[in-house]
C-alpha cells in the first residue's frame, strides 16, 4: 500500500493550500452483489473487511453501515486497550489484538495514536488482590506483560491517587500492564476504512440492513434501505444491534443490549499520564492527549437502545472518581454520552458461524471490545474466508451456551472496558 500520509505529504500539500488531499475513503453506492458483505462499519467491521482483503485476497467486499462509519460504540468508548485477561482463551485473543495494535499505525499509514502509557487495575479488598495475583500470574505464563504492585508502589506511580487507609475502600494494590494504554478511537475507524477502501472495499454508509434473504438454511442476500444486496457470505458486526440482526435471521442470541455511559471533563494540563481502572469503586479514568479526562461510567441495568443512560449512574461514577482522585472534585464534566453495549452471560464475545450457512456473527464484546478491534477483525476475516474459526476464536462459538463451556471473565478478572 502506498504510504501517502507523511510529514512530506503534509508539507507538499500545505504549500498548495491543502487542496490536493484525496478522500480518505471512497463512499460507494451499493452494487447488486458482493462476494462478502460485512454489516456494521464499526472498528470491528472495517477491520474485518481490511483483513479479508489484505490477508485473504478477497476484494469484492461491501461494508454496510446504517449511520456514519465508526459512529457506534467505536465513537463512544473510553479507548482503553489492554490484554491482561484471566482465561487463556480471552487473554490470547486480546494479546493477539495488542500485538496488532503495536504495528497498526504503520500498517494503516494512519496514526491511530496508540499510546502505551500502561493500565492499572486497582485492588481494594483482599479478594481483589487475590484475583489480581491470579490474573497477573496467568498473564505472565501466557507471555503477557503484567505485574502486581503494592499500594506504596501504586502511590509512587500515580501520586494523585488517594491511597489513604481511611478511604471507604482503601487501595491495597494493583495490577499493571505497561503495554496497555489508549488509542484515538475515531482514527481507528478511519484508518481501517481508508486502508480497506484502498483495497477496493466498498464502504456504504446510511444504508440499514432491514432483512435477510435466507432459504434452505443459507443466506443469499440482504434487504437494505438502499435496496437488495446479494451475497452468500455475510458477517454481522453490529455490536448493540446484534439481536436485531439475529432476529432477521431467525436466530436467538445470548445478548442483552444495555446503555453504557462515559463522560469527559474540560481540557486541562496533564495530571494523569496512565490509565486507572477500579472495579470495586466503579470508576475508570485516563487523560487524553487533548487534556480532557475520559471517564467510563457503569452500565445501566435495564436494557435500552437509546444511546443514553440514567444520570444516577454518572453521579455514582463521579463520586467514585473523587474517591480515587480527590483533586478532581472541582473539575467539571464537559460532555456525557452513552453507547449500546451487547453483553453476554460470560462477558466474552461471540465470534462464530451460525446455523445459517454463510452467516457469521461477531458480537457480544459488551463493555470492552475496542481493545480487540484489530484482533477481532483479523480472526473474523479468517472465520469468514475459511468458513472455519481461527484457532484463537474457536472457543468463542455460540455452542458454548449449550455445552456450558462458558469463559467466565466476570468472575475474577476485571472485565469492564
Amino acid at each position, binding site marked *: 500500500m502506498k*504510504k501517502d500520509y507523511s510529514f512530506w505529504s503534509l508539507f507538499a500539500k500545505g504549500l498548495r493550500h491543502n487542496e490536493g*488531499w484525496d478522500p480518505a475513503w471512497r463512499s460507494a453506492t451499493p452494487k447488486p452483489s458482493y462476494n462478502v458483505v460485512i454489516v456494521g462499519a464499526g472498528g470491528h467491521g472495517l477491520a474485518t473487511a481490511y483483513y479479508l482483503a489484505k490477508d485473504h485476497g478477497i476484494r469484492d467486499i461491501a461494508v454496510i453501515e446504517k449511520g456514519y462509519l465508526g459512529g457506534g460504540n467505536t465513537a463512544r468508548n473510553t479507548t482503553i486497550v489492554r490484554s491482561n485477561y484471566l482465561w487463556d482463551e480471552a487473554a490470547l485473543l486480546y494479546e493477539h489484538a495488542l500485538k496488532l495494535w503495536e504495528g497498526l*499505525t504503520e500498517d494503516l499509514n494512519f496514526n491511530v495514536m496508540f499510546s502505551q502509557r500502561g493500565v492499572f487495575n486497582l485492588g481494594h479488598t483482599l479478594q481483589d488482590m487475590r484475583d489480581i*495475583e491470579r490474573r497477573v500470574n496467568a498473564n505472565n505464563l501466557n507471555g503477557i506483560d503484567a505485574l502486581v504492585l503494592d499500594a506504596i508502589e501504586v502511590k509512587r506511580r500515580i501520586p494523585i491517587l488517594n491511597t489513604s487507609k481511611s478511604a471507604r475502600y482503601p487501595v491495597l494494590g494493583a495490577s499493571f500492564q505497561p503495554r496497555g494504554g489508549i488509542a484515538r478511537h475515531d482514527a481507528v475507524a478511519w484508518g481501517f476504512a481508508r486502508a480497506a477502501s484502498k483495497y477496493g472495499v466498498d464502504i456504504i454508509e446510511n444504508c440499514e440492513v432491514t432483512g435477510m434473504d435466507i432459504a434452505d438454511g443459507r443466506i443469499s442476500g440482504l434487504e437494505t434501505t438502499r435496496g437488495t444486496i446479494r451475497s452468500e457470505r455475510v458477517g454481522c458486526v453490529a455490536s448493540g444491534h446484534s439481536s436485531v440482526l439475529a432476529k432477521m435471521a431467525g436466530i436467538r442470541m445470548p445478548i442483552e443490549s444495555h446503555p453504557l455511559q462515559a463522560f469527559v471533563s474540560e*481540557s486541562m494540563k496533564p495530571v494523569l499520564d496512565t490509565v486507572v481502572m477500579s472495579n470495586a469503586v466503579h470508576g475508570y479514568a485516563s487523560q487524553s492527549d487533548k487534556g480532557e479526562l475520559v471517564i467510563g461510567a457503569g452500565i445501566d441495568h435495564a436494557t435500552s437502545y437509546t444511546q443514553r443512560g440514567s*444520570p444516577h449512574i*454518572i453521579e455514582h461514577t463521579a463520586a467514585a472518581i473523587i474517591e480515587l482522585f480527590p483533586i478532581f472534585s472541582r473539575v467539571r464534566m464537559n460532555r*456525557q454520552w452513552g453507547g449500546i453495549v451487547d453483553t453476554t452471560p460470560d462477558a466474552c464475545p461471540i465470534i462464530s458461524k451460525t446455523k445459517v450457512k454463510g452467516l457469521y456473527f461477531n458480537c457480544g464484546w459488551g463493555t470492552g471490545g475496542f481493545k480487540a478491534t484489530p484482533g477481532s477483525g483479523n480472526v473474523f476475516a479468517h472465520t469468514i474466508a475459511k468458513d472455519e474459526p481461527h484457532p484463537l476464536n474457536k472457543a468463542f462459538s455460540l455452542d458454548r451456551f449449550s455445552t*456450558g463451556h462458558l469463559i*467466565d471473565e466476570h468472575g475474577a478478572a476485571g472485565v469492564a472496558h
Partner: protein
Amino acid sequence: MTDFRIRHPNARVDFRRPLSFSFDGQVYPGYAGDTLASALLGNGVRMLGRSFKYGRPRGIVGAGPEEPNALVQIEAGPLTIPNLKATQVELYEGLIARRTSGWPTLAFDLKSFCGPLSRFMPAGFYYKTFQNQKLWPYFETIIRQAAGYGSAPEEADPETYDHRHRHVQVVIVGGGACGLFAALDLGRSGLNVVLLDEQNEMGGWLLSSPHTSIGGESAEAWLRAILAELQSLPNVAVLTRTSAFALHDMNLLLAVEQLQDHRPLAERSESKPRQRLHRIRADRIILATGAIERPLVFGNNDLPGVLTASALTTYLNRYGVAVGKRVVLQTSNDHVYQGACDLARMGCSVVLADTRSRPNTVWEQRAHSAGVDVRPGYGIAAAHGGRTTHAARLAKLDGEQNTVLAPGPLIECDVVGSSGGLSPTVHLYCHDGGRPLWDESRLAFVAPEMGRAEAGIFCTGAVTGTFGLQAGLEQAQRVTDAVLASLQKSATRKARNLETDEPDSIPARRIFRVPDGKPEGHGKKAFVDFQNDVTAADIHLAVRENYRSIEHIKRYTALGFGTDQGKLSNVNGFAIAADAMGKSIPEVGTTTYRPAYSPVTFGTLAGAHEGDTFEPRRYTAMHAAHVKRDAVFENVGQWLRPQYFLRPGEDRDAAVRRECLAARRTVGIMDASTLGKIDIQGKDVREFLNRIYANAWTQLAPGKCRYGLMLDENGMVMDDGVTACISDRHFLMTTTTGGAARVLTWLENWHQTEWPDLDVYMTSVTDHWATAAVVGPKSREVLAKVCSDIDFAPSAFKFMDWREGTVADVPARVFRISFSGELAFEINVDASYGPHVWEALLEAGAEFGIMPYGTDAMHVLRAEKGFIIVGQDTDGSMTPFDLDMAWAVAMKKPFSFIGKRSLARSDTSAPNRKQLVGLLTEDPTVVLAEGAQIIEQSDLEPPVPMLGHVTSSYFSPELNRSIAMAVVRDGIQRRSEEGRKLGRDAVFAYADGKTHKVKVVSPVFVDPEGARQNA
C-alpha cells in the same frame, strides 16, 4: 490604563460599590455586579489567552455561557477552579484570576511560532504524521504539554456539595421575558412551579435592552413588577445562578445551583454547600432558554476586540462598558440595530455594515437618527490587528450570491462586532432524544412551540425561533394556556397590553461565512470554532477528504468539542459544511446535543457521596468492643469485620498465629454477626429449600442444622451456609456475608415469579441477631458458665444441633456448628444485647485465656479443615462436584432443583474439570501466594499451560507448616494415593516469577475424622 466605563443608570452594576481583583498578577478595579469579563473589558484588557493550536492572541467574544476563549483559572490552592469562562465569573472583592493559555507568557507565546506553519497543520494533521510507534511517545509528550487549559487543584476539595430532589408540576428553564411571563401565569394559577436561570439575576435579554418598552412600561419596570409578584407567590420557587445542564427521560431536569462561588473567600459559609444539584422531576417542562447570537465567520475574526454584536450590547447596557469607542458592526439581520443605536447614543462612533443590500427601513432610520453609519450591502472581509483590533476591511457583497463584488474601505476601529443571527438554545430540548427543526425563514434550528407536548415538554420565546419580544410574550401566553389545559386547569387572566416598540422585522440574509474574494484557505484565517482553532478552510478540507457526515466533520476538525460545546460555532460549521457539499442545512443536520449544557463539577454530581458518606459502612453491634481491643478491620461487602486484633509488639502474622492457637488449644471468640440470616416460614418450607438448595431438606428434624449449597441455574455454586430447622414450618437460613441481599432477592424472585403457590414467606433477620462464635476445646466450659438452661453434655447437645436458652441472662439461640473444625457454639441474641453478651463471654472465658479472633484466623482455621469460602475458593465456574461435595447434592429429589439440569451438560459434566484440592509445598515454610497458578512443569517458556490456581493459602500454626487449597484440572484424580500411583500428584505453583513444587492432597489437613467438632 484607559477607562471603558460608561456609568449610565440602567447598568446592572453598582458603581457605588467598587471592588478590586487581579488578573495574571495585575490588580484592577471593578464593580459589584460585574463579571470578570465586563470588569476586564472595562479596564481595556483585551488579550486573555492564546489559541490552542496556533498560539494566536485571543480575547473575550461573548458575554455568557457561549464564551469560547476567555477561560480563566480562579483562585489558588485547594479552592482553585480551572477553565471558568470569564463571562460567567461574578466579580467579588479580592478575586484572583489567571490565564490558562499562553506559555511562557501571554505576550510571548511559544505556540505562536506555529502560526506561520499553520498551513502544514491542517485538520487531521496528527493522523497523517508521527507514524513511527517507537517515536510516538516522545511526540505525544510534547503534544500533551502543549494541550489543555487550566489546571486541576493539587489538593482535595475543602468545600461540599449536595443534591436536592424536587418533584414539581412545572419547571421553567430560563428567566428571560418569556420564562418570567410563563412563571407568572402558572404561579397565579396556584401550580407548584420552579423557575430557574443560570444568571445572577432574572431577566435574560431584557437586562441587555432596558429601553425596550412593553405595554408602555420600560423593560426594567416590567421586570421589577413581575419579579416582585413572583417572590410573593409561595408556590413558586425562583432559583438564580442555577444552570439546567441536562434533561433526561420522563422530564427529569438536572440543574446546578451556585451557592458560594460569587462570594469573597472570607464570606463563604462553612456549613453550606458550594453547589447544589437539583434533580427536578416535573410533570411539565417549559423551555424558555432563549437564543445565543452567532457571529459571522470572516478573516481574522478571532482577534481580541472582535465580539458578537449582542455581547457588545450587553456589555454596554448591562455592565456599563463600551468595549471600544470606534465600533464597526456587521450583520445579517435586524437584531443588532438596537445595540448599534445604544452604542452611538452613548458616544461611540458606529459603522454598521448590513450584508443585506436593503436593510429594514425603520431600523435604518432609527440608526441614522442615533448617528449610526449604516452601510447596506457590505460585509467585513477581514479584521486587522494583532493583540487587539485596529481596523476592519469591508467588502461590497453581491446581493444574491455570497461573493465579493468589490473591495470596500478599510475602517479604523478598536472593536468589531458581528451578528449572523440568533441560534436558539435548543440543547436541553434535544438531550432526551428531541431533534431541532431547521427553520429556513429564521435561519435557525428551533425547538417547536408545542415541543413534545405529549411528553410534557413545551417551549417558548427565542428558543422556538420567535425572536420578537411581543410575539414571544404572546406565545408564552399560548404555551401557558396549553400547559394549564394539559393539567386540567385554565388561566384566569385579564387581557393585557403586550405591545412593544419593536419594528416589524424583515428577513435576515442567509450568510454565515463572509466572503473575502479568495478561495477558501487562501485568505486570512476565518475561525468557526475558536476554542479548537477550527477554520472554515478546515471544514472544507474535511469535506474534500470525504469526512462528509457532520459527525465526521465534527470529529475530524474538533468543531464543537470545547467547553462551549459549539454554542457559537456549531450552526456556522453546519452551514459552511452544507455549502461545501452543495447540500441544504437540514440535509447536513446537527451533531448530537448532549449534557452538560454548561460544565458541572464532579463534586456536584457526587453530592454527599464522598468521604464518610461515600458508601455505607455497616457495623455489627459489637463494633465498639472490637475497636477497644485494637482490631484491624477488613471490608467484607459493605461490612467492616475485625481482620485480626493487634497486641503490643505484634505484627499481623503473630496476631493471627496467636488467635488460631487459642481457638485450637483453648478457646477463641469471633463476631459472626455479618452472616446473612433469612427467616423462612410456611408449611412448604421444606419443599422450597429442596428446590433452592442442592441438598435435601425433607428429613431435617427440629433442633437440627444442615449445611447447604446453593447453585445458580447455570449449575455453579453461588452461596452456602447452615440452615436450621426451628420447626416443621419454620427454618432459619444463613448466607455468606456478601451474599445476603442477593440471596434474599433470589429467593423472593423464585417464589414470586415461579412458585407463588408454595406456602412460604421469608424475611431478613440479619440485623436482628448478633452472633458470637465461641470456638475451641474449652468452649463448652465457657458456655456452661453463662448459660444454665441448656444441657451442654455431648450426648444432649450434638454437633449440628441448636438449642434455645438464656446466655448471660439474655434469651439466645445456640447453634453447635463449626467453621473451624473445633468444638464450637454460635450464640445468637437480639443485637441490642450483643455487646453485653460479648463482654460476658469474654469475662467467662478469661480463665481459659479466651481470645477474640478475626477473619484472618477464621480463614486459617477453616482452610485447615478444607472448608470453602464461596467467592474465594469458587469463582462462578465451580460446580459442587468440582468442589468434591457430591455429598451436598441430592440428585434424586423429585423437583429438579435450581442448577441441577446444567450439571448434566457436556462440558459441565466432563470428567477432567478443575477441582478443589489441597496442596502441600515441599518446603513447609513456603506459603504460596493466593492466586499462584498451577502448572505441570517448571519450564516457564510461554505460553505455559495452566492447570488451575491457588485459592487459599496460609501458614498453619496448628501444623506448623504451610497449607493451601487450589483448584486443579483433574485434581481429584491427582490427590495423594491415587495421584501418586498415576505419578500425577506433583505439580508446580507459579507466582511472581518463582515456582514451587507442590503435592496435591486432600484439602482436609486437620482432624479429617471430625473428632474435635464432634467432641
